[in-house]
């Protein structure tokens, strides 16, 4: 049995399109880079100032001036470029970023995302999340369906929103959900998970056709 995070990362990987620019958030979204489908060439941006980074180099070969937004060591692939923060966010906010994958604390029935603070408890700050949600052409939320037994998909956000914008797609270990004008549309169910189970575990109304297909996931290993 795959764990929840792996299912999510492998499903999100199928959203990657050839020759696009993609920004992966810290945490779960970072795992998506391990499952890029064969034949799909994606340039990954890290908002601290690079396009075209790759896996961490072997131990002892790290460059202290070459890190991702979480501060972890990365490598630069041939054709990579580096730039300052104003340029990095010109790329993000200016509509030059094809897709971002972000973690989430809540998504509500209108498709708004909350992912940057829990008042009085956890105040990490928004970092680049607000700019990414406003600026990326597609915003994919990669998150576990529930936290501490509570559905993270809710009728209306109880946490401060990251942006007013409706996100493009939500991928959890149970379902793929697309926010639409009419509400949250249940597009796919995870292997072996029934529609009834998803509805029972979701604290917002879901629009489901009578035949919701099972989700495909990217093969292990990737390209």
């Amino acid at each position, binding site marked *: 049995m795959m764990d929840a995070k792996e299912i999510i990362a492998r499903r999100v990987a199928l959203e990657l399109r050839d020759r696009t620019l993609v920004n992966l958030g810290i945490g779960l979204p970072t795992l998506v880079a391990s499952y890029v489908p064969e034949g799909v060439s994606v340039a990954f941006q*890290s*908002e*601290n*100032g*690079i396009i075209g980074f790759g896996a961490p180099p072997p131990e002892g070969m790290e*460059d*202290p*001036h*070459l*890190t*991702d*937004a*979480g*501060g972890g060591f990365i490598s*630069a692939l041939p054709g990579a470029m*580096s*730039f*300052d*923060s*104003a340029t*990095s*966010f010109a790329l*993000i*906010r200016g509509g030059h970023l094809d897709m971002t994958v972000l973690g989430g604390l809540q998504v509500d029935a209108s498709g708004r995302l909350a992912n940057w603070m829990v008042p009085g408890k*956890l*105040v*990490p*700050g*928004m*970092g*680049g*999340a*607000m*700019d990414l949600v*406003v*600026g990326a052409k597609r915003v994919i939320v990669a998150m576990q369906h529930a936290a501490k037994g509570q559905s993270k998909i809710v009728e209306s956000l109880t946490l*401060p*929103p*990251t*942006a*007013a914008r409706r996100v493009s797609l939500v991928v959890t270990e149970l379902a793929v959900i697309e926010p639409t004008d009419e509400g949250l549309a249940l597009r796919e169910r995870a292997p072996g998970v029934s529609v009834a189970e998803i509805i029972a575990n979701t604290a917002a109304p879901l629009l489901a056709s009578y035949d919701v297909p099972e989700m495909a996931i990217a093969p292990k290993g990737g390209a």
Partner: protein
Amino acid sequence: MREAISPEAAAALIPDGASVMFGGFMGVGTPERLIEALIARGVRDLTLICNDTASPSCGVGKLIETGCVARVKASHIGANPTTQKKMIAGEIEVELIPQGTLAERIRAGGCGLGGVLTPTGVGTVVEDGKQVIEVDGKRFLLEKPLRADFALLRAHEADYHGNLTYRLTAANFNPVMAFAADCVIAEPDEIVPVGVIPPDAVRTPGVLVRHLVRRPQ
């Protein structure tokens, strides 16, 4: 020509209560030797303007850990539990600013602009107290320029005219901060003779840099 000074001499220029921009992203591209010298001199009540507060043992995190800081303007403090603890205890004041907005406010401050209009933050708590301006039917927040008394930069190479280069992701906020402070002090990894850095490779024009910090002896 600039004379290279010691980190201690540079730290002595920065009075208690100063507002200081620090280049760096999670401690990468941060002037660590200047930070050490500021801690050694026991500076107090600084206002930090920086992307993040790194971690307690790294970069500007060390200034927070040692009680040098009264106020922080940053986009992210999540990797430094001390910042969060001191904020909740009311020991330091924290203003959280979206990362792209922080970069643009600093850029505006350094470029003589009266602010920037950004869609980032519309419909969120970031909008509170700010002017919303509609341009061609789209809503933007007016974000005001940000400047500081000092900008402390980390560069890769400098020459004695103050021209600077950066490496890879260590550039981050350094180039934009070079424009936005009354006094800019750069801590390069290397100082090379004038003429060694090709003009096209200079990322920060030397005219912006007041002092260079000597390389480690």
